[in-house]
């Protein structure tokens, strides 16, 4: 009996439609979020993440409606985020049907936001998302969809974020994102060693072997991927069978 490693499909949206791109650029349409959510719910996803990567304030009502439509399809947990800057915006996302929310840019500007969100909704509902890129011999946190360098050490920031109240870390490797060349195991392992909360690895997912690596060498608690699932390059059931046969605890479905 042990906690299963989670496989988490991620829906990057422009608020309304699922989009995808390489290294955060060249976005193109990849489908209806509610339709994909319904599919992943049946195929055995352990959780779903839906992000508003445009995160423009005017667009927020559309994204909240997207969360409602996605949540209606799910009998598994839903995490949502993108541009959350205060407790009221967090509450709106949770009320729309998300179980957890991600914060990124606003938390770097104001780490106390994590404390406020945790006090209001509990740490289990607060996921600190970090976009990290290798700079010299360390990883640096980037904000605004990966477009702005902060000079902040990603591992130190993860540790501080947990001290402030984050209940989970979603670490995205910008070097790996969209490349299908495997997760960034050294980055994930460094974050995992630094914090006491669960760590979700993101960026670079490809073959079942890459998931095995990030669980074994990256010590990830969960692994997130988008296009390999959207494009049916990798089936969730086959991925979990592969991992289960190699001794990784996963929730087998169907």
């Amino acid at each position: 009996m042990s906690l299963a490693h989670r496989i988490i499909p991620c829906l990057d949206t422009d608020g309304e439609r699922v989009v995808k791109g390489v290294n955060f650029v060249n976005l193109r349409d990849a489908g209806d979020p509610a339709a994909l959510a319904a599919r992943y719910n049946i195929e055995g996803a352990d959780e779903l993440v839906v992000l508003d990567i445009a995160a423009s304030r005017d667009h927020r009502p559309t994204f909240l409606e997207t969360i409602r439509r996605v949540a209606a399809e799910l009998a598994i947990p839903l995490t949502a985020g993108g541009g959350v800057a205060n407790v009221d915006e967090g509450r709106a996302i949770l009320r729309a049907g998300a179980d957890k929310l991600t914060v990124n840019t606003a938390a770097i500007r104001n780490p106390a936001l994590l404390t406020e969100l945790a006090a209001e909704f509990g740490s289990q509902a607060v996921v600190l998302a970090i976009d990290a890129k290798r700079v010299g011999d360390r990883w640096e946190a980037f904000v605004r969809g990966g477009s702005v360098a902060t000079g902040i050490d990603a591992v130190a920031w993860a540790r501080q974020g947990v001290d402030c109240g984050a209940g989970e870390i979603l670490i995205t490797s910008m070097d790996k994102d969209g490349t299908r060349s495997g997760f960034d195991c050294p980055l994930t392992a460094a974050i995992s060693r630094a914090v006491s909360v669960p760590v979700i690895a993101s960026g670079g997912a490809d073959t079942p072997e890459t998931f095995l690596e990030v669980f074994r060498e990256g010590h990830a608690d969960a692994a997130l991927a988008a296009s390999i699932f959207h494009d049916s390059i990798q089936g969730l059931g086959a991925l979990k069978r592969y991992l289960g046969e190699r001794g990784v605890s996963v929730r087998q479905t169907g």
Partner: protein
Amino acid sequence: MNIALVEYGAGNLPSVERALGRLGVESRRASTPEALADCDALILPGVGHFGALMRSLGERGLVKPLREAVSRGTPLLGICLGLQAMFAASDEAPGEAGLALFPQKVSALPPVDRLPHMGWNQLRRARPSKLLEGVPEDAYFYFAHSYAALDAGDAGVAYCDHCAPFVAVLEKQNVFATQFHPEKSGPVGAQVLSNFVRHAGGKG
């Protein structure tokens, strides 16, 4: 069948409503003592903080009506924080009284593994369980918590183990509760909700 979800201004009511709706079971929200008195079964969902939950119930005057409903034999299902609220007290809010349907207290899980305990885990069954009827022994359920009841006497029917063994399912007469979220636990979670509705006298 008249199922009421206790509404206290927080929690995850819509998820539970949707999960019941998928079973074809209608529910309504109850936020007043009168509404709690007038139902066939009660569900106390919960996410967040033990102290905040008990204060919200107190401000709405729902603590005594909930206890009275249980005394009358109304079936009650507590979910996650709703399970924890059934105990006398919690490490999460020292000095704040719980519903005290059970005399033990809720403890912080010792930090020997990652916390919060977040994700899908399996159960160890200690006694026959009504809620788990028809559920495979190796089924996974979704948990998201850092506090738990380590002991519930003979009401503890199934346990989970993360950082310490803790009560995952408790049942005593008309009182039922799960530390996991059945409304987020896929088909096996639906089975648990269905079992509750059936044992409460409805068509689960």
